[in-house]
C-alpha cells in the first residue's frame, strides 16, 4: 500500500482510512472519520497528516479543465501537479505566477498552504493569483468561491491548510514568458550585512531573489553565502537544454548522512563553488527553481528518523538582529542543513487568514531528527521569533507549541468558523488543543 507520510517523515501518523476520489462529483465517504485532503505529501510536518482519521488522496483529480492561450488563465483540478502545469504551458509561453522550491506539489496543496517563491517581493503568494475555486463541503455541497462570491470562504481557503473543505478545481492566472530560460546571477557574500545590502539593491531589478546561507559560519563570517537573483530571459538565439533525467535517492539511509562533518565539508566547498565573486549565466528554469527536484526522494538522505524543517519570518524593523540571533544559535549547535535559505519578503499581504508570508526576512533550513535535542533547539529559535513578532510556517512545522501558533496567526479564531465540520488534521489538533 502507498505510504502517506509527510516529506520530513516526522511525526509518524497512520490514517484509519484512505479514500481516492477520481471525480469532482464523488461525495465524501459516509463513515464517521474526520477527513483531510492529501495532495502529493510535500508538506514537511503534520499539516498533511490525519492520525487515526481519514485522508482523501486528491491525486486522482488531475485533469486540466481549460486553458486560454491568449489570457493565460488555467483551470484545473486540485490534484494536478505544478510540474504538469509547467510541462503543458511553458512551450506555449506561460509560467506559474508563483512557484515554491519543488514543482512536485499539487495545485490544491499550493493553495492550502498559500505557498510563496523567490519572487514574493514582486508577486506575493500563490493564493493571490487564484481567481476562483470550487470547494466540496460536507455541509454545503459544492461552493464556488472568489473575491466576489463567498469571499470569506475564499479567503479562509487560501492558506486554509485543507480544512475548509476539499478543493475540487481552481482557476489560476499564469504569467507570460519569452522562453524556458532564466537570466541569472550568483554573487558570493561574506556576512549578513552584505546579504541585506544585496537584497535591498536587487529586489527592484530582479523578479527572483534568494540566498543560500552557510549555516555553520560564525563570527565575522556569520551569514555568509551565495546570493542568487534572476529574471525570465529575453528572447535568446540559443536556449539552454533542459536537464537530463532525474535520479532517485535509492534507499533509506540507516543513519542520517547529514552530520556536522559532511555539513562542514559541503558548506565550505559550496561557498567557494565559483571562482569569481559574481557569475552570470543563462540557465534552464528547472535547475534555477528546483535544484532539489533533480534528486527524487532526497528526504531519504536523513535516514528513517526523518528530519524537521524550520521556516520563520521576522519583521523588517529588527530583521537583521533577529536573523543574526537565529544563525548564532544554529551555528553554535553545529546543526542545520546543506540548504539553508534566506530571503526578504515583499510588502504584499495575502488575503489568506492563515497565510504565512508577511513583510520581513524569512529563514528556512532543515535539521536531522535527533529527538529531544532537535526539539529543544527549535524551541530556542521559536523564542526569538516570537519575541520579534514573527511567525513559523505551518506547512513546514511538526512541533511548534499551540501558544506560539496562536500568537503567530492571530486570526486563527476567525478562521475556525470556516472549517468544514467533518475536517481536521494532526496539525490543527496539535496547535489548537495544546
Amino acid at each position, binding site marked *: *500500500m*502507498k505510504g502517506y507520510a509527510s516529506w520530513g517523515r516526522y511525526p509518524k501518523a497512520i490514517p484509519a482510512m484512505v479514500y*481516492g476520489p*477520481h*471525480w*469532482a*462529483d464523488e461525495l465524501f465517504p459516509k463513515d464517521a472519520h474526520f477527513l483531510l485532503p492529501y495532495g502529493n505529501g510535500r508538506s514537511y510536518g503534520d499539516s498533511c497528516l490525519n492520525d487515526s482519521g481519514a485522508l482523501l488522496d486528491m491525486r*486522482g483529480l488531475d*485533469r*486540466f*479543465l*481549460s*486553458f486560454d492561450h491568449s489570457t493565460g488563465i488555467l483551470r484545473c*483540478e486540485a490534484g494536478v501537479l505544478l510540474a504538469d502545469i509547467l510541462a*503543458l504551458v511553458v512551450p506555449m509561453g506561460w509560467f506559474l505566477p508563483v512557484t515554491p522550491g519543488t514543482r512536485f506539489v499539487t495545485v490544491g496543496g499550493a493553495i492550502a498552504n498559500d505557498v510563496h517563491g523567490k519572487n514574493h517581493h514582486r508577486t506575493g503568494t500563490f493564493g493571490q493569483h487564484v481567481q476562483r475555486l470550487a470547494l466540496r463541503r460536507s455541509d454545503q455541497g459544492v461552493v464556488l468561491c472568489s473575491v466576489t462570491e463567498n469571499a470569506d470562504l475564499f479567503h479562509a481557503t487560501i492558506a486554509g491548510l485543507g480544512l475548509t473543505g476539499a478543493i475540487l478545481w481552481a482557476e489560476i492566472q499564469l504569467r507570460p514568458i519569452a522562453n524556458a530560460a532564466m537570466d541569472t546571477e550568483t554573487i558570493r557574500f561574506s556576512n549578513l550585512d552584505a546579504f541585506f545590502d544585496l537584497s535591498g539593491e536587487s529586489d527592484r531589478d530582479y523578479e527572483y531573489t534568494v540566498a543560500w546561507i552557510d549555516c555553520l559560519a560564525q563570527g565575522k563570517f556569520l551569514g555568509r553565502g551565495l546570493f542568487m537573483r534572476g529574471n525570465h530571459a529575453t528572447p535568446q538565439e540559443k536556449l539552454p537544454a533542459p536537464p537530463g533525467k532525474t535520479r532517485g535517492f535509492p534507499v533509506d539511509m540507516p543513519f542520517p548522512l547529514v552530520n556536522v562533518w559532511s555539513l562542514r565539508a559541503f558548506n565550505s566547498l559550496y561557498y567557494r563553488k565559483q571562482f569569481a565573486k559574481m557569475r552570470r549565466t543563462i540557465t534552464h528554469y528547472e535547475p534555477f527553481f528546483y535544484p532539489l527536484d533533480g534528486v527524487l526522494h532526497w528526504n531519504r538522505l536523513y535516514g528513517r528518523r526523518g528530519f524537521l524543517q524550520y521556516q520563520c519570518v521576522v519583521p523588517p524593523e529588527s530583521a537583521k538582529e533577529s536573523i543574526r540571533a537565529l544563525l548564532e544559535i544554529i551555528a553554535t549547535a553545529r546543526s542545520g542543513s546543506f540548504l539553508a535559505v534566506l530571503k526578504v519578503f515583499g510588502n504584499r499581504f495575502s488575503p489568506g487568514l492563515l497565510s504565512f508570508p508577511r513583510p520581513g526576512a524569512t529563514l528556512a533550513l532543515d535539521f536531522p531528527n535527533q529527538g529531544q535535542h532537535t526539539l529543544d533547539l527549535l524551541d530556542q529559535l521559536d523564542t526569538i521569533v516570537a519575541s520579534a513578532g514573527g511567525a513559523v510556517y505551518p506547512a513546514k512545522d511538526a512541533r511548534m507549541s499551540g501558544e506560539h501558533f496562536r500568537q503567530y496567526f492571530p486570526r486563527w479564531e476567525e478562521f475556525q468558523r470556516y472549517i468544514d465540520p467533518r475536517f481536521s488534521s494532526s496539525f490543527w489538533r496539535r496547535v489548537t488543543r495544546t
Partner: protein
Amino acid sequence: MRHILIVGATSAIAEATARRFAQEGDRLYLVARNPERLAAVASDLETRGATQVETMVLDANDTTKHSELITQAETTMGGLDTILVAHGTLSDQKACESSFDETLKELQTNCLSLISLLTHVANRFEEQKHGTIVVISSVAGDRGRQSNYVYGTAKAAVSTFLQGLRNRLYRSGVTVITIKPGFVDTPMTASFRKGKLWVSPEKISEGISRAIQRKSDVVYLPWFWKFIMVVIRLIPENFFKKMKL
C-alpha cells in the same frame, strides 16, 4: 494524426492512454455513460493537445446504437482508424454465484457488448483495408479460478474472439491487439489490498502506446505477467482444482 474512437473513455486505463493520444495531437471520439465525467475527461484531453475531441453519452450495453455510434465517430472526425475498447465492470463473483441474472449482466457488459462493437468495427476496417483495434482484456481470462471465474469467462471469450478476428483481418491489413493487464490500481480495484505487483494506469497506458506502435498481437502488461500466466496455465488441472486461487 489518428482518428480514435474510445469506448469506456472514463475508465482509468482509457483516460491515461487517451492523454498520450492527446499529446500526439490525435482526433478523439469519446464514449462513456456519465455525462459530467465524460465532459471532464474531454476538456482535459482538449487542453492537453488533442486536435479534436467529440463525445457521446452511451451505455455500451445498448448494442442497438453501436452501428450508429461508429458512423457518427467516422463522420465527425472525418475518418476512423483506431478503436480502443476499455469499458467494463469488475464482477461481484459471489453475487453471480447466487444469481444467473447477475452473471448474464456481467457477461453482457464485459463480453457481449464488446463482441457487438467489434463486429461493426471489424467490418468497417476490413472494407477500408486498414485500422487498429485495441481491446482491454485481462489475465483473468487465461485460467478459471474460483475467486473471479465469471469475469474470467467474459475475458476469455473476448480474447478468443479477438484471436479469430486477428486471423480473419490479417489479410485486410487490420491490426488487432489484445491487452492483458495484471493488477492495476484504478477506481475499479479501489477495495483491494495493493501489493508489489500492482501498477498505475499510466504504466499500462505506456504499454498500450508501445503495442500500437509495434502492431503487437497479444500483450501482457506489465511484461512479467506473461511468465506468471505461463506458469499458472501449466499447472495440471487435477492439482489446480485443489488450490485456493
